[in-house]
């Protein structure tokens, strides 16, 4: 065992030295960016060209408009991992709870009741302003998903189930979020079929070959077409997904406790 560790260490040190010598000016940052980055920065919000995304935030425009198919498949990978985890512990937890368990002291419970609406407000603000400031669907959903974890620890897991937050309702919420994302993705395609013009599948604004586009602003407020709807549905889907995972790992019991 000792000889293998020494050989691995020497090989790693030699490889790192070669990497630093050959690729030095590409790894340490310089004063200019690549041409692909300049293209994305130029067309993220530019009402004068005809292949723009009309969103002042370049990262959200890349995630949901320029490279929207990557995000679609990443959402489906997360969904498959969640379904796989629930299938593993399927026979091991019961949803019928008679009374809630014993939580923490009354000071902690009062403070949690005061800060719970604040967490939801901050998460919703980060999620719905994703096309104007740094933020978006994932960020808002993750912040909101911290709240059920705190409630399960401070009150108890039975308290949450007795309030009506069961696994089947959370799976329904997540599925509704994913259906909303799917409908928003093909909305312009179906509108183009109905009107007789041609349209792409993940289309947001008017392109040279397809002249149909979503509204840029409603009532004077900038919404950047499909980006606002994507952020809204993704926020619900991510929050419901994390809550399911934490509830399932908290309430799983062993095989002997089932058979007794």
């Amino acid at each position: 065992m000792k000889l293998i560790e020494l050989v691995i260490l020497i090989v790693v040190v030699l490889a790192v030295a070669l990497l630093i010598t050959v690729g030095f000016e590409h790894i340490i940052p310089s004063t200019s960016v690549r041409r692909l980055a300049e293209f994305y920065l130029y067309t993220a919000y530019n009402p004068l060209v005809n292949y723009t995304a009309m969103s002042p935030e370049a990262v959200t425009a890349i995630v949901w408009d320029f490279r929207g198919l990557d995000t679609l498949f990443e959402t489906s990978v997360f969904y498959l991992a969640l379904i796989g985890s629930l299938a593993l512990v399927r026979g091991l937890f019961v949803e019928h709870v008679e009374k809630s368990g014993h939580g923490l002291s009354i000071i902690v419970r009062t403070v949690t009741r005061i800060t719970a609406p604040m967490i939801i407000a901050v998460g919703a603000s980060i999620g719905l302003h994703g096309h104007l400031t740094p933020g978006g669907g994932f960020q808002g959903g993750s912040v909101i998903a911290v709240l059920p974890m705190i409630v399960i620890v401070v009150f108890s897991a039975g308290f949450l189930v007795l309030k009506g937050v069961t696994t089947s309702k959370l799976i329904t919420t997540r599925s509704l979020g994913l259906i909303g994302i799917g409908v928003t993705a093909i909305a312009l395609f179906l509108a183009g079929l109905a009107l007789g013009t041609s349209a792409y599948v993940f289309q947001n604004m008017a392109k040279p070959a397809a002249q149909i586009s979503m509204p840029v602003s409603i009532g004077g407020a900038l919404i950047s077409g499909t980006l606002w709807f994507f952020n809204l549905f993704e926020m619900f889907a991510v929050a419901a997904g994390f809550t399911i995972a934490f509830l399932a790992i908290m309430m799983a019991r062993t095989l002997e406790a089932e058979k007794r």
Partner: protein
Amino acid sequence: MSSVEMLNTYFLSIVLASLLVNTTIALYALFFKPHYVKKVIALTIFSDTVNTFAIFIGYRRWVGQTPPRVPVLTDLNQNAIENTIEEFKSLAVDPLPQALVLTAIVIGLAVILFLVFLGWILYSHYKTLDMREIRGLKG
């Protein structure tokens, strides 16, 4: 190089070298530590360090005396939009690695959640999480 230039490059090389050291320590622990939870912790450290390396490549240095900017356009005045976009293009950092790392973080999180459930099933079957003993059992 002048001395200020060499000092700046030295600090950036410290960041690069410490990221490589983190990767090596996490890979060592993933192979040679016997407990399952320690391996999961090492896997999270490894994936986070690789994501930080990707964002570090997309950084941009100061041009003269002006610092670089976050890739968010804040001045939406429609009259001077051409000049604003030209200045934005010459000062902002690269937005493409940030979009790809966002996807990579969520996928890594999904894999870690699945591994935790798998660890619970392993414990309820074999009564231990020590991988040397599980490797020695035969069915």
